[in-house]
């Protein structure tokens, strides 16, 4: 593409930025806007903490030599689904607010030559990072909660399986967070550069 653009072309096509650049800017957005980041991250954290506690409780039951009844398992699955849905909506909402707060900034980015896909990337990376750390902390909290309330049975606890569950929680939490940020990110990218020019905002 770029190779065809010798000196004779008066307009070329903007290059897509490498992931690294978008990552750097996203990371800096998080470290600078800690308050907003905490709210977004907390959404994932709570949902994942609950999911992990359900996983750990099952392991704990096994450690006690018991089996969860099918009715109990079904109830737990239902609660987990609900809590993840609430997390999803919470993250979407928080990211939407983040987009609104940065309306003018996004417009300025576009005036300076940012492509739509860069804006989308930036928001998704931001929310992916928050999802990762949120679910890391959340899964630790969920596990700790179950351990602390069942200290007597820790001896027979299946730690290997618990770590596996934790990893699954982190992957799920990150995906959840990125997915939830997709609609706000697309909305941000669709914003017109002309809005940055408007003075009365």
């Amino acid at each position, binding site marked *: 593409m770029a190779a*065809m653009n*010798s000196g*004779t*072309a*008066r*307009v*070329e*096509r*903007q*290059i897509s*930025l490498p992931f690294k*650049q978008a990552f750097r800017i996203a990371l*800096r*957005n998080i470290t*600078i*806007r800690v308050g907003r980041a905490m709210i977004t991250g907390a959404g994932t954290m709570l949902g994942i903490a609950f999911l992990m506690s359900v996983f750990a409780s099952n392991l704990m039951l096994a450690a006690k030599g018991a089996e969860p009844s099918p009715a109990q398992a079904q109830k737990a699955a239902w609660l987990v689904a609900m809590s993840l849905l609430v997390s999803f909506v919470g993250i979407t909402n928080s990211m939407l607010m983040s987009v609104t707060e940065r309306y*003018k*900034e996004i*417009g*300025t*980015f*576009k*005036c*300076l*030559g*940012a*492509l*739509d896909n*860069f804006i989308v990337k930036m928001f998704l990376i931001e929310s992916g990072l928050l999802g990762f750390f949120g679910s890391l902390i959340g899964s630790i909290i969920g596990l700790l909660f179950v351990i602390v309330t069942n200290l007597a049975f820790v001896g027979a606890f299946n730690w290997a399986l618990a770590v596996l569950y934790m990893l699954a929680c982190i992957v799920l939490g990150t995906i959840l967070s990125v997915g939830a940020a997709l609609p706000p990110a697309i909305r941000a990218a669709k914003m*017109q*550069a*002309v809005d*940055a*020019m408007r*003075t009365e905002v």
Partner: protein
Amino acid sequence: MSSIATADAQNGAAAPAVSTSDDYRASEHIVRVRGVKRVYKIGEVLVHALRGIDLDIKRGEFMAIMGPSGSGKSTLFNMVGGLDKPTDGTVFIDEVDIAQLDAGELAWLRCRKIGYIFQTFNLIPVMTALENVTLPMIFAGASVDEQMEKGKRLLETVGLGDRLYNKPGQLSGGQQQRVAIARALANDPAIILADEPTGNLDQKVGEEIIQMLKRLNKESGVTIITATHDDKMYKRADRVSIVIDGEIQAVVPPEQLGDNTVDGFLAQLKEEKDAAAIKDLETAAEVTATNAAITGEG
């Protein structure tokens, strides 16, 4: 006076959007605006922000666009800067019809060819002065070394060599606008668009910004188009376009405005117009009277 406004229309034929042919010669005019109209629709109400603008801006020119608030200066800017599309008419930048460009080409144009300066500075608040200046270079794909070296040099050019790591919040309005000027220069644009760059600054600081723009214009030959109703600004320009109610009333050298303020000039223009209208009326009345006499005789 308004006769000067008539643009040379011989170049009016549409040029191909992007031509890679070798016969392309840099035209004398870097910006050509032809019959540009912009209508905003607010509910059922139509707002005619631009009513058919024709304007040619020469390469390396310092053009001031003057007019009262709401006359359409910013709207014209958005058209020339490729930030908004005309309802009707065409904008050529370097003979390229920018309405024909796709999103990637428009982004390139905004990144490389045009530098924007806003009334409200529009710096990214969470970034340092240096990071703000290097941002357009990141989008242009420059290496980190290049970014740092050039970013520092540009900030030194605008007299902020010692404020590289300050955030916009730690800088005064005038300093913020100077960061914005450095940012606008980041990718060596051919055109700088400055929409009321002194609008949020006090007189003295505003004057510094104007001088800086003039200096850049002289030294690097960058074309500067600035909307303003700052009386000091137009005196530095090569030409002044007067926009009223979405129409260009006149394009004149600043000397022709004399010591008039913008408002004074507008009043004078209106007087002349009214006088012409009265004259027309008188002529019409005479004709009617003559006709009546003829009819009476017959």
